[in-house]
């Protein structure tokens, strides 16, 4: 397959950035989007040009490193897939494909398609945990958890922290990310003790980082590579209100 690409090139944080047009030829339909970029990058290096920088690592949709807005959509046209899992067979031969970084104020561009997502780590550090010291805990089966609850907690815990939800949201809100963690821990009996503080501190940090509010757009759920439901945002709202007023 052959493609025309328009890729966002930006040298560093200060650079203004622009789209640059490229062509890639003879791409296997089974190749992933990132492997297509690999092919283009080999060409660029051979020509002595700077290759396109993009974050990636596991290439099996679990590490959350990759993230490209492809034709206006976080992680491209696939449903429930990260950019690394997106196969070129989903495009038409000869398509023009536009590739740009996550665009959100709290995610400054480092270079080309690479952005700084450490804001998400700071939200985690503000309270995304159960304060269980190493060693001082109960026997594992002392805490039974009803299977449906454990399953729902796992649905939320499946978040890979890629930031697609933020990039998809018109308000650059990180509500789905925060909701996934708050929901995962609020559902479990182990998470009850710090339930209130967790919701308050994580939301406070989210606001401090400059993420916007949720206006029920649901683009986050539509673009989430792990199909995390906006129902968790409803739970986050409930947790937050509960913490504020009770």
């Amino acid at each position, binding site marked *: 397959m052959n493609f025309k690409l328009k890729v966002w090139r930006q*040298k560093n944080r200060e650079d203004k950035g622009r789209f640059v047009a490229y062509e890639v030829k003879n791409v*296997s339909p*089974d190749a*992933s989007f990132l*492997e297509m970029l*690999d*092919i283009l990058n*080999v060409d*660029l*290096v*051979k020509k*002595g040009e*700077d*290759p396109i*920088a993009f974050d*990636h*690592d*596991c*290439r*099996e*949709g*679990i*590490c*959350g*490193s990759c993230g490209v807005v492809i034709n206006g959509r976080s992680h491209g046209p696939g449903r429930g897939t990260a950019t690394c*899992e997106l*196969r070129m*067979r989903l495009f038409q031969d000869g398509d023009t494909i536009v590739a740009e970084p996550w665009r959100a104020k709290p995610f400054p561009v*480092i270079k080309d398609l690479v952005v700084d*997502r*450490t804001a*998400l*780590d700071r939200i*985690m*550090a*503000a309270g995304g*945990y*159960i*304060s*269980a010291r*190493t*060693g001082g*805990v*109960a*026997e*594992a*089966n002392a805490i*039974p*958890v*009803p*299977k449906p609850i*454990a399953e729902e907690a*796992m649905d939320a*815990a*499946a978040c*890979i*922290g890629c930031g697609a939800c933020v990039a998809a949201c018109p308000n650059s809100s990180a509500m789905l990310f925060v909701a996934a963690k708050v929901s995962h821990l609020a559902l*479990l009996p*182990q*998470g009850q003790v710090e339930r209130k503080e967790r919701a308050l501190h994580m939301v406070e940090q989210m606001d401090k980082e400059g993420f916007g509010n949720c206006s029920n757009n649901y683009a986050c759920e539509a673009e989430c590579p792990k199909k995390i439901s906006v129902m968790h945002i409803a739970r986050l709202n409930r947790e937050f209100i509960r913490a504020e007023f009770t």
Partner: protein
Amino acid sequence: MTLESKIPPGLIEKKWDTHRFNLKLVNPANKRKYTIIVVGTGLAGASAAASLGELGYNVLTFSYHESPRRAHSIAAQGGINAPKNYSNDGDSIWRLFYDTVKGGDYRAREANVYRLAQVSGNIIDQCVAQGVPFARDYAGYLDNRSFGGAQVSRTFYARSQTGQQLLLGAYSAMSRQINAGTVEFFPRREMLDLVVVDGQSRGIICRNLVTGEIEPYAANAVVLATGGYANTFYLSTMAKASNATAIWRAYKKGAAFGNPCFTQIHPTCIPQGGDYQSKLTLMSESLRNDGRIWVPKKKGDTRRAEEIPEEDRDYYLERLYPSFGNLVPRDVASRRAKELCDNGLGVGPTGRAVYLDFADAINRLGRHVIEERYGNLFDMYHEITAEDPYKVPMRIYPAVHYTMGGLWVDYNLMSTIPGLYVVGEANFADHGANRLGASALMQGLADGYFILPYTIGDYLASTKFNTVKTEDAPFKEVQDGIAQMVKKLMSINGKKTVEEFHRELGRIMWDYVGMGRNRVGLQKALAEIPKLREEFWQNVKLVGGPNELNSELEKAGRVADFLELGELMSLDALHREESCGGHFREEYQTEDGEAKRNDEQFCYVAAWEFAGVGKTPNLHEEPLEFEYVKPSQRSYK
């Protein structure tokens, strides 16, 4: 160099308790005065950093990722072992210990393995307390499944994302310490060298991957938790950035490298498609619990899988190993698949694949059960191959997946350089010549949560430290060396890309140091790798500058190290004239084609000491003694 394993005396079940009592303690009020560097924040690194932070040490952590949650531990799928005996099927610490020693083909230390089995139960307790959403039964208790190489159900799991959930647990514990101020995290920093002052490991040199700055950091002790080196093969199931640089540069500073040739080939990966392919994708071994592996009985059978009737199928693992069937250990399953494909019985477009069939399991249990157990694996397979495994059998083939070798460490997890500790996959310690499924997560977390935090305290309490500063000459010297290396790489301006060199090395490694090895092939590898390395240093082409985010420069440093490590792996494989576990020397096999050990000559850990690039390293032997699990020919029949 002398190897002192420091295995405590006494009965095996008492060794760790006695040892813990004998370890010196650091006064709680003094802990904050000690700085510990932890490089790598996957399962082993993050759990170590969190636990050390909780104890009150001043911990500095480094990762080439932007966040600890990106580490490749996240991709482990199947599960984590612990002999809780929740399934009431006769499991015990002894049985896990026995299975691990035997599974490793008698090339691991008994004392280490016993300790690992002992603390593994605590890991499950810890993870549940952190909120890891393990699978549960309808009464709300933890569910277990069985895994390759074991006849009991002792594997705890969280769908097929166990590694992810355990890493998020360790990462959250570490985040809590970041919030508390005991742990500091330096993202996008790659360790490029170790600083040794007066014979003690006292710091590291990193490259800031965003600015290109070469930064020095000083500490009282350094912990490497930087994972394995399977990417030496180019195509493996490892993440793209996984590399050996940290352990390799420590090796060049005097840390012995243990059993470098012990690599694991995982039997259930998605077969290679084309040349564009950048990595191989693993499908959890848990699939072998319900999937049946087969090939057509006739060569060149071009019928589609579903058109081949039962009588024309060879369920070869069930036929050859009636008692373990599809659950034989990884090395055995991989080797049999390769043999059949070599004999022309392979399936799929390349003939380098075997079927993994779920039709029986779906008929027996219903599609919903299979979906619940393996749903995301089936989806992933579907995404990649465009075939629906609920309808047609999966095609699988072995791929390089894990390295049992690594830096040599003593019972305290300290390398041959005082103050340099190595944890998780980066060390050589517990899996011998073959790792059992669901044991990598167990070992990473055992090292980080429950072993290192005690043993490192003993070193700190009993060592006299001079004050060192990053402005001191030893730091400057190493820092300058790294700056020189970067400059050299940038200035070669040759014709071949880093990627091309890496692929070429991968081909040599896979052909000669892969699943089957022999003297002639290994000698060929030992001739070709140095040539390729020489060419690399004359003809590699880099672009961009040193003072910016430069992925080609990052890769170049890593590939330069793989080009040296590949040679050591070949040398180790050549010297070990026996077959054991994942190390299969074709000259040494039983009549049934199983690995044939030579306990008379090779019942030892081969620890190599660096002697200069291109020079033959010095071999040191740590003899292995088996008091409790007597070596026998492994049999899974």
